[in-house]
């Protein structure tokens, strides 16, 4: 692997940048691996990276039915924050946030992590009470989060309309200054490059069609469109298609897959300094470094794998954007798309063991998995390597739906999906 540096850029300038090497290998699958990861999105690639880096397990394959980072990793709105209500969640997302710091240096790959601040708007008395409760809970859990008046919110984000005569006036905001955005593709590419350099095989266009098990129950490998590949340990990180993959091992999960839409505008000069989210009127928005406004809408109400949602959902979001930021009323939207998110009943992820020996599960990230990518990969690698959950992901077991120890972030998510 070429280590990227200023010197390397200068050297390649002499050949007009035509001779840069491939960032990761594209090998043929071996007959067997120590660990197979199903799904080459950010979480799957991060898992493979930390398996190799932290646990020294390099005989790993990451399989994907399409291309790496082509699912929800390439479709999300790239927001990073950690101000979740419950202590278990705050620990998990803060663990990720700690890893985001210095991730570019660690991967030697610019993931364009920008801590520009994430501001959540309150429009009702109930919002104010809920956000203040969040802020107090966060501060007790060691997570930064602060309350702003409407005027302070406007100072932090000048395009914001705090007129009292709009339908849902801004009554204040919760601000996490360390929150922000990162370049989603670069996260997948950086982890893929790092993992590949340590010996991990990333095998694209290789769909898993079955999970083979021994008569005693434990997994022995996966059937794929490129033949059987053996492994004693399998980690499933298939996001919206998790139910489909796990059904191959005879498991039924507490998941429902829904389309979640996002859209981007034409690129304009820097005009929007932070990330703004509004739960009540349902919109979130930031500006990418390329200049596009990146806007997130809600989920469709029904189960679907179509990677497309209803136009009335995005229209609803744009209504809110136009009211909150009147200067964007004449912006033209360039593209919109959907990704399939796997929602759990308590809106918290499932990371841990399954009833099938050797089969591990990382799913249920729902509408907000991107922010957790490094932390999710880190604790899932620990779970696979040691066969037991890391203390951070121990509460997020599949078993919690039997014991009733749910981590109810459903009412606590920043945007009510």
């Amino acid at each position, binding site marked *: 692997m070429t280590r990227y540096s200023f010197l390397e850029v200068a050297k390649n300038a002499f050949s007009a940048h035509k001779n840069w090497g491939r960032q990761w290998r594209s090998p043929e699958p071996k007959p067997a691996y120590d660990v197979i990861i199903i799904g080459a999105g950010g979480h799957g690639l991060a898992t493979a990276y930390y398996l190799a880096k932290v646990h020294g397990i390099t005989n790993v394959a990451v399989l994907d039915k399409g291309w790496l980072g082509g699912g929800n990793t390439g479709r999300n709105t790239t927001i990073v924050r950690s101000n979740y209500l419950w202590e278990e969640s705050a620990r998990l997302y803060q663990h990720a946030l700690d890893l985001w710091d210095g991730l570019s240096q660690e991967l030697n790959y610019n993931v364009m992590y920008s801590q520009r601040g994430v501001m959540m708007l309150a429009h009702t008395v109930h919002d104010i009470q809920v956000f203040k409760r969040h802020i107090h809970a966060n501060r007790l859990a060691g997570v930064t989060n602060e309350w702003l008046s409407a005027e302070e919110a406007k100072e932090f984000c000048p395009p914001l309309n705090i007129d009292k005569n709009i339908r849902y006036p801004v009554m204040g905001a919760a601000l996490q200054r360390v929150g922000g955005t990162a370049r989603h593709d670069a996260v997948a590419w950086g982890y893929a490059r790092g993992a590949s350099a340590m010996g991990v095989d990333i095998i694209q266009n290789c769909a898993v069609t079955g999970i083979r098990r021994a008569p005693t129950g434990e997994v022995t490998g996966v059937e794929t469109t490129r033949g059987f590949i053996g492994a004693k340990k399998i980690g499933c990180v298939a996001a919206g*298609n998790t*139910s*489909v993959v796990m*059904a191959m091992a005879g498991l*039924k*999960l*507490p*998941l*429902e*897959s829904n389309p979640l839409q996002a859209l981007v505008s034409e690129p304009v000069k820097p005009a929007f300094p932070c990330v703004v989210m509004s739960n009540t009127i349902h919109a979130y928005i930031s500006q990418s470094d390329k200049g596009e406004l990146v806007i997130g809408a809600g989920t469709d*109400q*029904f*189960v*679907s*794998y*179509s990677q*497309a949602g*209803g*136009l*009335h959902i995005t229209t609803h979001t744009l209504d809110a954007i136009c009211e909150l930021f009147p200067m964007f009323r004449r912006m033209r939207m360039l593209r919109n798309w959907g990704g399939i998110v796997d929602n759990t*009943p308590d809106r918290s992820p499932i990371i841990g063991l399954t009833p099938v020996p050797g089969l591990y599960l990382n799913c249920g990230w729902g509408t907000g998995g991107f922010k957790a990518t490094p932390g999710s990969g880190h604790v899932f690698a620990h779970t696979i390597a040691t066969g037991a959950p890391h203390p951070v992901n121990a509460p997020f077991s599949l078993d919690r*739906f*039997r*014991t*009733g120890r749910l981590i109810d972030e459903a009412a606590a998510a920043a945007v009510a999906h």
Partner: protein
Amino acid sequence: MLLISCPYCGVERPETEFRYGGEAHIARPADPSQLNDEEWAQFLYMRTNTRGLYAERWRHAHGCGRFFNAVRDTVSDKFVCTYKAGEPKPDLDALARASQEKDAR
């Protein structure tokens, strides 16, 4: 937006008139006090979440207000049929085969 045919009203209406009710044909336990934790988890939370033909509940919230069931392909989002609550679950495998044969022709 989906167009949904309400089997009670007998008309096709836009999705915004309806609320989704999740997977259909999950019967409430006949004797709840006899269920163990695992059986409760299955009833309350576990869903087949099928990629393909899926039997699901809808409620015509801004119409007749009644619950009914539907079979929809979760890949194309096309409805195969809708039917009244209480009617038996259609044979999804047979419906899938029929739609494949139709596509083949």
